[in-house]
């Protein structure tokens, strides 16, 4: 056979590697030496084989050299102490450095053990890292949701006022309340009024014009009360007069580019000009505040339809916040303030509650809440999932580590023979586990930053800005516990065993009670099946909600914000001409106007009554309402069931503010609510406006299908128009430029914005879609972690069963047959877990669907698919090791018998 120099060198190096005396750096140096030596031999005329033999011979015996290498490494530790003072601290003779050498040696040894089980250790580290990262991310998110605005100065003393009139608890308050509270109660140090506005504000600065969709109208000391950081301006007086505005940094760059925009002019609405007096850093994601504009509360009625009632007559859309003094008692305050209120309110009984700032985001019980909230139930579920993931990955980590340890009981036996105590064994494992855990921790940090840098922007997942050391501390504590458990378990078990048994090939059986394994795997599979089926149901329901027939021509509708005040441009009288001009475009079928987009009406009222109505309680029924223009129902493609649509031929149809009269149209559900056969001509009344019902329109979905179809009434009042609703001809291409041309003639410099109703409907279910996204992510993670768990199990049972497999093979079974035999066992587990999972999963799915008025069916295929996917995952992950076992030469597994 030919002499292969390179492979001989590699073999020789391999011999070095298997000798623990040599470290990586040594091996590298020795390899270079051998190659130099061989080369110079060849140069002198020897054959490659001779050269190799010479070189290795002159290197000497590896064992002897190895001993010297070890000695050289430990030499410094035995240096006499007397030299210590003579050397500086960088000297290796220094005791501190010696300690470091010892520690670094131990780390090296631990890392080497990890390397010896490369694949398994990698899997173990990865599983733990994913579990850690996922649970860390989820828990941080939950923590963040519970701590909205908690970083503000004095946040724990800031409360929002809730007015409780005995029937409803509402966030709307009386306008004079804030001032009065501050004046009369020493416990209340400061107060402020805010109104959150989510309509359109047309803003202009030079050539830059946009529709702003959210703004806060506030008292002038906003930034003094809420300590949001300012980029420019003075927090004590950020809104000095009614023509001043504070803008966010992103708005500043949008309208004014780079640089300090203080003193610049921003046109808002019709002809009003505001001076920028402050620029604030964008509100963080963990804040109740959003929007790019903060405007003086006193100008709210100049810019919007919101009316602030200045007297104690009734409440307005105003949130009142107060800053309590140190040690103020909320219960006493509630009692005292209710007496003071009775004085102002003509003996009407109203109680004030003081809601902590951090409670606003998660407490869903109050009426007229302005900002998006998250339900505590979802946060609880998320926390549960986080702990579940952490638990499953910790258990897997433990078991896989025990699996790894059980492969080298012989070594442990040897150590015991040489007198290793339980303590020594414990430290041995503890070091190893700690090294593994440390690697997982580093990997988890990597995964977390991957989430923040890549996943958050790509899939618009929740960003995390709230960090808290206490949470980190809890996670680390859990880690330490798992770490201790994983370190203790094997050392306890192993040190309690007879040393001799550790040398027997069956020794792995001692490490672990195998009866626990099937139960564990069945539990994990059941969890997986439930998660996958719930995930599928979520997808199905979201699809159902977004594609279900809304009862109107959703695909053909667009909306355009009517972003000018009444009496300007097309808002009001001008609308008829505008609609006519628009209809002249071939692509446009019909044009009308309404209060809200047909996709998302959320206007409610109570106090609806009609002539033949006797029941007082009916006054409390919540009706939806909508202010529309002529041709609205035709635009939507909805039919009249009785009577007629509003008609320009009937003068009395439109709302008259002088006579307080108007005509009404109601929907089918409204008709059912009234319980009348023929409602046409019946006198209908709400808000003090009276008039006949002229028509009944068929029901259609103008809000999320989470809620039941609602009774609705329609009026015709241009004051309450916000949206232009346009029906397109589906056969013609619509060009934005054409619409823009018409718009220009009427809307002078108001920005034109075109929104598709179909998109708005999808946006209605953003919460469902968000939940779907999050759950999909969790399911994938759980699949990963459980997959890792399965590999653990198959490794453990592989060790246990390899002899059994060997005997099967000796008796003539083929590898495929053995694989099938092993897989049948796992198939049984999956089947059992399927039976276990299906009922609770079905129950929870049913419960979740009960939140929706309109819901998809829980089809059988959801469970079937979840079961099949689980089975597939199980078989794929276990076959890896099973195949290794089945295809092995039986001699290897049986030779020790």
């Amino acid at each position, binding site marked *: 056979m030919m002499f292969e120099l390179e492979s001989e060198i590699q073999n020789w190096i391999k011999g070095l590697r298997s000798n623990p005396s040599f470290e990586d750096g*040594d091996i*590298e*140096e*020795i390899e*270079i*030496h051998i*190659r*130099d*030596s061989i080369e*110079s031999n060849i140069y002198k005329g020897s054959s490659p084989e001779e050269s190799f033999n010479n*070189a290795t011979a*002159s*290197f*000497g*015996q*590896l064992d*002897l*050299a190895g001993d*010297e*290498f070890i*000695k*050289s*490494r430990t*030499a*410094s530790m035995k*240096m006499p102490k007397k030299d210590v003072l003579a*050397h500086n601290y960088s*000297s*290796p*003779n220094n005791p501190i450095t010696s300690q470091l050498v010892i520690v670094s040696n131990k780390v090296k040894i631990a890392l080497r053990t990890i390397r010896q089980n490369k694949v398994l250790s990698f899997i173990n580290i990865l599983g733990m890292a994913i579990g850690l990262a996922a649970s860390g991310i989820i828990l941080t998110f939950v923590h963040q949701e519970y701590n909205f605005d908690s970083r503000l100065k004095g946040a724990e003393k800031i409360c929002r006022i809730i007015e409780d009139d005995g029937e409803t608890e509402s966030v709307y308050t009386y306008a004079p309340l804030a001032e009065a509270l501050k004046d009369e109660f020493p416990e209340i140090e400061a107060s402020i009024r805010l109104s959150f506005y989510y309509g359109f504000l047309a803003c202009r600065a030079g050539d830059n014009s946009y529709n702003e969709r959210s703004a806060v109208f506030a008292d002038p000391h906003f930034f003094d009360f809420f300590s949001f950081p300012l980029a420019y301006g003075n927090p004590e007086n950020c809104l000095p007069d009614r023509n001043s505005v504070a803008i966010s940094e992103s708005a500043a760059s949008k309208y004014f580019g780079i640089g300090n925009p203080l003193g610049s002019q921003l046109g808002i609405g019709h002809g009003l000009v505001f001076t920028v007096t402050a620029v604030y850093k964008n509100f963080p994601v963990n804040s109740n505040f959003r929007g790019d504009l903060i405007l003086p509360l006193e100008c709210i009625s100049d810019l919007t339809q919101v009316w602030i009632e200045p007297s104690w007559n009734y409440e307005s859309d105003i949130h009142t916040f107060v800053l309590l003094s140190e040690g103020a008692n909320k219960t006493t305050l509630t009692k005292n303030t209710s007496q003071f209120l009775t004085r102002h309110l003509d003996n009407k009984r109203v109680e004030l509650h003081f809601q902590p700032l951090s409670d606003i985001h998660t407490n869903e019980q109050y009426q007229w809440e302005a900002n998006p909230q998250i339900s505590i139930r979802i946060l609880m579920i998320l926390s549960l999932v986080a702990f579940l993931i952490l638990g499953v990955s910790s258990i897997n980590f433990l078991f896989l580590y025990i699996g790894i340890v059980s492969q080298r009981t012989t070594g442990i036996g040897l150590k015991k023979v040489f007198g290793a105590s339980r303590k020594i064994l414990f430290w041995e494992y503890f070091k190893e586990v700690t090294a593994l855990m440390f690697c997982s921790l580093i990997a988890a940090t990597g995964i977390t930053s991957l989430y923040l840098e890549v996943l958050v922007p790509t899939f618009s997942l929740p960003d995390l800005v709230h960090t808290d050391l206490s949470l980190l501390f809890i996670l680390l504590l859990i880690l330490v516990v798992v770490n201790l458990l994983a370190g203790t378990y094997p050392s306890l078990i192993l040190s309690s065993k007879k040393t001799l048994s550790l040398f027997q090939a069956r020794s792995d059986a001692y490490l672990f009670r195998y009866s626990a394994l099937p139960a564990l795997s069945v539990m994990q599979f059941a969890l997986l099946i439930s998660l996958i089926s719930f995930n599928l149901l979520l997808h199905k329901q979201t699809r159902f909600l977004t594609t279900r027939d809304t009862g109107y021509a959703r695909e053909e509708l667009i909306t355009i914000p009517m972003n000018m005040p009444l009496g300007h441009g097309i808002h009001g009288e001008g609308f008829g001409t505008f609609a006519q001009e628009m209809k002249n475009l071939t692509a446009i079928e019909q044009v009308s106007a309404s209060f809200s987009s047909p996709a998302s009406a959320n206007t409610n009222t109570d106090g609806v009554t009609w002539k033949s109505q006797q029941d007082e309680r009916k006054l409390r029924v919540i009706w939806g309402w909508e202010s529309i223009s002529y041709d609205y129902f035709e635009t939507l493609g909805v039919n009249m069931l009785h009577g007629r649509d509003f008609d320009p031929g009937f003068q009395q149809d439109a709302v008259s503010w002088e006579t307080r009269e108007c005509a009404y149209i109601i929907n089918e559900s409204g008709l059912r609510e009234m319980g009348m056969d023929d409602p046409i001509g019946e006198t209908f009344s709400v808000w003090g406006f009276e008039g006949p019902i002229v028509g009944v329109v068929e029901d259609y979905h103008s809000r999320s299908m989470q809620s039941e179809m609602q009774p609705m009434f329609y009026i015709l009042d241009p004051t309450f128009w916000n949206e232009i609703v346009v029906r397109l001809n589906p056969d013609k291409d619509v060009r934005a430029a054409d619409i823009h041309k018409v718009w220009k003639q009427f809307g002078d410099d108001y920005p034109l914005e075109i929104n598709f109703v179909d998109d708005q409907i999808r946006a209605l279910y953003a919460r469902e879609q968000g939940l779907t996204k999050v759950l999909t992510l969790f399911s994938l993670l759980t699949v990963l972690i459980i997959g890792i768990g399965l590999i653990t199990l198959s490794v453990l049972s592989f060790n246990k069963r390899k002899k059994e497999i060997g005997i099967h093979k000796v008796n003539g079974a083929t590898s495929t047959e053995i694989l099938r035999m092993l897989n049948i066992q796992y198939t049984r587990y999956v089947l059992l877990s399927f039976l276990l999972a299906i009922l609770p999963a079905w129950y929870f799915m049913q419960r979740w669907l009960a939140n929706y008025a309109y819901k998809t069916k829980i089809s059988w295929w959801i469970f079937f698919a979840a079961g099949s996917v689980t089975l597939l995952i199980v078989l794929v992950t276990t076959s890896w090791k099973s195949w290794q076992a089945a295809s092995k030469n039986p001699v290897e597994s049986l030779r020790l018998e």
Partner: protein
Amino acid sequence: MASKGLMAASTKPLILSILKEGKSYGYLIIQKVKDLSGGILEWSDGMLYPVLHRLEKEGYIESEWMISENGRKRKYYSITEQGKLELIAEKEDWLSVQAVLVKLWGILPTE
């Protein structure tokens, strides 16, 4: 050939002396020792490296990985200031031992 104990004792001054001439790597150092001693001091190559490592640890020499002219990575050793002092001390020790021995044995052949 020299005895094992003597060889072990002589490695330190030998290596320090060689490195005093300039930095060098393991294989070359061994070749130099072999050349100089003409086979009187014959180490197995594997024994040299632990000595180098120990000297490094004691602070007499230092090392760095460098890329040599043929593109091969090599660990080069060089002597430190402390090593130079140590070499002077060693030299004195060895010379005084030698002086004693020469005095002891020198009488016999010449007289």
